């Protein structure tokens, strides 16, 4: 058992509302300059859940399940910074009041997974509260590895092995080279995700990255996200795919930071038998992965 400071973590409520989809211009250019009209972020998504394919949807940056945000700037950022993947959520207003879900990712909105019967009852504007716990989580024997957006519940499922000499090892669904990392480089590592770049489909296929699923645990080579996100040879970052693909240049499935190390102390291997995916780990979303 990896020793952590979980006994010291504070559990605190944050909240948002099921947020409406919005559209400025209907058209967006793809990487060849062709305009498209695609459904994108926000809303209650009834048919895309964590564990489903990241590619192939007729949508852009699709956020699975329910997207929530808060109207006020302070509470909105509390929601962003404090909510952790795997935290419990509860609907506190509307037809679905009392229904329980799970926080699955952070993008333009916080994404929450609910079962289909609950999704059908949720109206835009319904309040959803998250029991945020995970901010401040540390691996006590690995101070050189940063931990982010991680509920203790998810941490326990990651199948982390201790190898000695400050090293750990865990299974991932796929490995991303540094040059595939795009939009989000300009943002702090504690805020939302960084997209992998999916416009070069040949390279994507050659790297085995064209069959990712939302919720996949991924390794990024030579990326140090200890403080912001950047290239450092030998560094390793472990992340989680939080949203669907995009057709915009420099965009693609998003990767949220979970663990990062400036040196090579995080080892990983691709597990093709038991897919390292949030849906399977927490028994949510697409149940075929469990």
């Amino acid at each position, binding site marked *: 058992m990896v020793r952590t400071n979980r006994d010291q973590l504070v559990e605190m409520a944050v909240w948002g509302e099921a947020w409406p989809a919005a559209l400025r211009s209907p058209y967006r250019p793809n990487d060849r300059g062709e305009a498209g009209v695609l459904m994108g972020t926000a809303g209650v998504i009834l048919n895309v859940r964590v564990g489903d394919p990241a590619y192939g949807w007729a949508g852009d940056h699709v956020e699975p399940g329910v997207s929530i945000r808060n109207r006020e700037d302070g509470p909105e950022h509390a929601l962003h910074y404090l909510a952790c993947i795997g935290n419990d959520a509860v609907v506190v207003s509307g037809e679905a009041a009392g229904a329980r879900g799970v926080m699955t990712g952070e993008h333009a909105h916080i994404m929450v997974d609910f079962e289909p019967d609950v999704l059908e009852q949720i109206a835009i504007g319904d309040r959803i509260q998250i029991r945020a716990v995970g901010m401040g989580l540390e691996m006590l024997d690995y101070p050189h590895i940063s931990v982010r957006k991680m509920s203790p519940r998810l941490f326990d499922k990651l199948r982390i092995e201790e190898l000695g000499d400050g090293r750990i090892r865990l299974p991932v669904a796929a490995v991303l080279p540094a040059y595939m990392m795009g939009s989000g480089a300009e943002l702090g590592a504690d805020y939302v995700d960084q997209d992998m770049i999916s416009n070069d489909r040949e390279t994507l296929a050659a790297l085995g990255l064209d069959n990712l699923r939302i919720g996949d645990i991924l390794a990024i080579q030579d990326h140090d996200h200890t403080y912001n996100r*950047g290239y450092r040879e030998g560094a390793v970052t472990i992340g989680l795919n939080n949203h669907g693909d995009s057709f915009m240049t420099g965009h693609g499935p998003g990767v949220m930071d979970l663990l990062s190390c400036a040196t090579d102390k995080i080892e990983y291997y691709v597990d093709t038998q038991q897919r390292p995916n949030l849906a399977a780990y927490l028994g949510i979303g697409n149940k075929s992965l469990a």
Partner: protein
Amino acid sequence: MVATNHDRLVTMSVQGNVVSPGYPGIPAIPHQIDHEGRPRLLPALGGIVYNVRLGDSVYGWAGDNIEPGVAIKSPEGPANQALNVFACVGNQAVVMSGNAKGAIGTVTGKSGRFAEHVILAFPPDVLDRLAIGDKINVRACGVGMTVRDYPGVKLKSLSPPLLESMRIEENDQKLTVPVKAVVPPELVGAGSGLTSESGAICIQSMDRNALQRHGLDALRLGDIVALADYDSAWGHGYRKGSVGIGVVSSTDSIKAGYGPGVTLLMTAPDGEIDPMVMDRVNLVDLLGIDVGGAKA
């Protein structure tokens, strides 16, 4: 020399004001966190910068993404968008108010998300007379320029005089473009996924060994560089075989994922550009810009 439609381009005024530097207010924790986790308080974007000039090294300054010379911005969103998209590197900038009224400078680059500034070079005596808030008019010309016989090559933020000065040659249906250095795709950072019509894309500088390995440790403000395997036709993103050309327009940064800012000038998604590495490929030489003693 390449053939273009430069005689059919529109020249239009876009205007901005000299911007003030800005910092967050109370609770008075104005630091940026550097890539080793240290809080640092340094001069950053904006303002009139007297001593960091085109031709100077991008590295070693006690500053973060410093814009050399003068940075301008329009107070109105859509007007600032027009300023940031239509202004082209090499365009003339004319001071329209204040003690330096009538002085002429040159557009040298742009800054990206979180700043949206256009960067200008003026001779030192003009910098001495400029005040924050002074109006500066850019005679924007370049957007819409195309290269005959190369429909796949897109030009951005590139003025006709700069294109003419770049010593581009046609070789075997490709454009050979002189550059100071070539940036590999793993070192392209902040700006990826964002617009290529304005703003900047950073050369990541956290890994100093990687910078040295790629000859990027001696870059100067105004150097022309190539981006390998980067497609910037409709936003910036990785594509094997694509080539971008840009100009180094702001200094290094302390933050992971950031570094010297590059304003994109040309992109060939299908690879019709061959960068040729050589010395003295800097705006100071190419445009004969007076920065008070040529330094490149």
